[in-house]
């Protein structure tokens, strides 16, 4: 009888062992663009992996553009922006779970995109 108990216990352990092997850890990713007062173009990678482009109009330098989604470890995160105002500036950041993962900044540079990218780090 005790042997049967042990077998049942270990069978359940086997089931749990198999069932509990994979663990997905999603993280909150936020693209944030700030410090620009004249508008800009942005390219960014969405959660489905496609590249999106949009033109952003801003009313003041206090305006902040954000785009948030959930991503898994190893997912590519990418955001790139450029402005046309030769007196302008821009700050581009990627935040993962509320912390700045990568950031870029440019001032008076209307030629070169500010590109910030990487992959969601593995724990």
């Amino acid at each position: 009888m005790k042997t049967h108990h042990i077998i049942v216990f270990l069978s359940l352990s086997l089931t749990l062992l198999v069932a509990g092997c994979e663990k997905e850890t999603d993280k909150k990713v936020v693209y944030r663009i700030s410090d620009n007062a004249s508008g800009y173009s942005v390219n960014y990678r969405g959660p489905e992996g496609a590249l999106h482009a949009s033109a952003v109009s801003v009313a003041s330098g206090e305006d902040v553009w954000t785009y948030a989604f959930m991503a898994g470890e190893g997912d590519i995160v990418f955001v790139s922006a450029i402005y046309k105002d030769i007196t302008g500036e821009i700050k581009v950041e990627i935040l993962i779970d509320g912390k700045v993962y990568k950031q870029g900044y440019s001032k008076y540079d209307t030629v070169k995109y500010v590109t910030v990218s990487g992959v969601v780090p593995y724990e």
Partner: protein
Amino acid sequence: MKSFWVLPVFLFLMPTPGFSQEADTLIDLEGVEVREVEKRPEPFQVDILKKREIYETAVRDAGDILRKVPNVSGIRKGGIGLDPVVRGFKYSQLNVQLNNGHKIEGGCPNRMDPAMSHIDVDDIAAMEVIKGPFALRYGPNFGGVINVLTVRPAPADKLSFHVKAMQGFESNWNGSKQHLALYGGNGDIFFRLMGNYKKYGDYEDGNGNTVSSHFTRYNYSAAFGAVPWKGHELILSFEDSHGRNVMYPSLPMDERTDDTRLMSLDYTIDDLSGTFRELNLKCYHSAVSHAMDNKERPFSDTVVAVSEIDAINMGYRLEGRFSLGRGHLWVGTDLEDIRKDGARVKTRILEPTMPVMKENLWANAHIRDYGFFTEFRRTFNALELVAAARVDLNAARSDDLRLEKMGNLVFFDGETGSDFTNFSASLGGTCHLTGDIDLSLSFGRGMRSADMVERFIILLPIGYDNYDYLGNPQLKPEINYEADLGAQINRENSGVLNLNGFFSYVEDYITGRYLPPSVVKPQTKGVLGVKEFYNEDRVFLWGWEVSYRSPAMYRWGVRFHAARTCGVNPGAKKYVFDEGNLVGVTSLENDPLSEIPPLEANLTFRYTFLDNAVIPKVSVRAVGRQDRASEAFNEPETPGFITASAGLSWRFNRYFTATGGVNNIFDKAYYEHLNRRIVGGGGNLYEPGRIFYVNLIFSV
């Protein structure tokens, strides 16, 4: 509720007075192992590693433990996935299989997942290493066969159910492993369910440096057997195994996911008639879905590269055994059908529009090998003779080998088909000179066609040296002509001494030769150029093994073995570069072959206490300096080293066994000659430093 736990635990731990079985008994309880690992006398070298040696050591990888066999080494590229080298033969020169004929094709072109890596070490009952091109019933055999026998269900005299559980822990890389098996049945129907889970972190080498080597692997399997009629046996088996985040610091990528499914059917009929003694049929299907990337490498800040590959290997093996007077004849046929497809996607994440490029790694590559084989054994008084032959009809196809970049054609080869008929044969004999001295001599010719990589790879740095390699669909098969000479002295009071020597002449040896940039340009940053696989006229390998095992009748036991292999290429060429430009080619006379392990010796001493219940042991391993390094491959020499380990096996009662010990007692910083260097100038890939380990095994 508490009593539910206390009683079984007490029963487990309660010593069993009078338990006097031999040390091997716990292993042999799983009956099928005894049958499959029984060693036949052979005129060539056959080494068998039994399960006990797995549980008695800190091991997490099947390729790793094979290094215990004399003249067998492993190419290490990470924490696991060691690729075996037997007497200097490696990769497809070795026939690696599961349970007498089940083949597995790894997905990675850089062999981060060789066939052995898809088999969980804790499911293994025994590993059989047959050296040389002599055993021809197991598929094309060029340099040797590694036959991995897993624990399988077996019929029992009466209905019974059993459980076996193992919990293992290793310090240093904080590794833990669990194994659970449920098995049972009766004489008509029987089964075995198994599962394993392994999670290891990064290890520290003897210098205290952390080596990126963490991994997670798990698998589960089910096998069901039936005896529908007397003498008939059917076994159906299924296994799913998975790898997650497996690090390979010596390769450009790490394994992100690996999902492997193995299925097989075995049908055996015994005692068909007085002449037709046995019929064996095996059908199998292996599917490997392998994804790897560079996301944890510094270069991923610029380009994220992800490769996904599907590899399928399926086939069958049908064999009959006939009794002809004092001889036995085996006749059979087999098929191995390999298909591989996959691509690498590169995302340039520093460019404003994030361009994405896709390159084919394999383009519906397909190799099919039909084999027909026979073997005859007969005893003539004091002489045992074995003769074998096989013919392989090997055909390979692929879509065009094409590489385009930014709309420009980098490489194209449209002639990808080839057909070959390969003939292999062997003849060997053992002469029983006296009651305790045997002499054996074998001659063999093993022929194998090029593998997927050698035929179809498109400009990837997959070799030992720093070049992009290009496949060659028109490669001729390479042929190994080998002679083995052996002697065994087996005396009841003084033990068993084995001496073996071999010499191989390899014709049309497959290796790489330089192609100038005017023909094709390299595609990997930092490589010296492009090498294309081709057939070198000939190379030679030779070596020896000596082993000694003390008699089993004493409480003390000694095991010793030493081995050495050498190899040369009489016509090697060295390419001399200056600032990335080829400035000269030097012909080298008798350049040593690359990736040949140095002289190695192992000594183990054990003593048995308490009626074999407690067995401590101490081992010393001495490896010589490898100064026979290949100049053509820019192979560095490797210093020698000595390591020591100690262990204890304690069979507490019939249910519970514990093994533990310490590997690399003195925390020696060392690396094997075959360990690949860490990519990106990271230096040598050192072996783990000191490891304390414990394995707890329950069996009911």
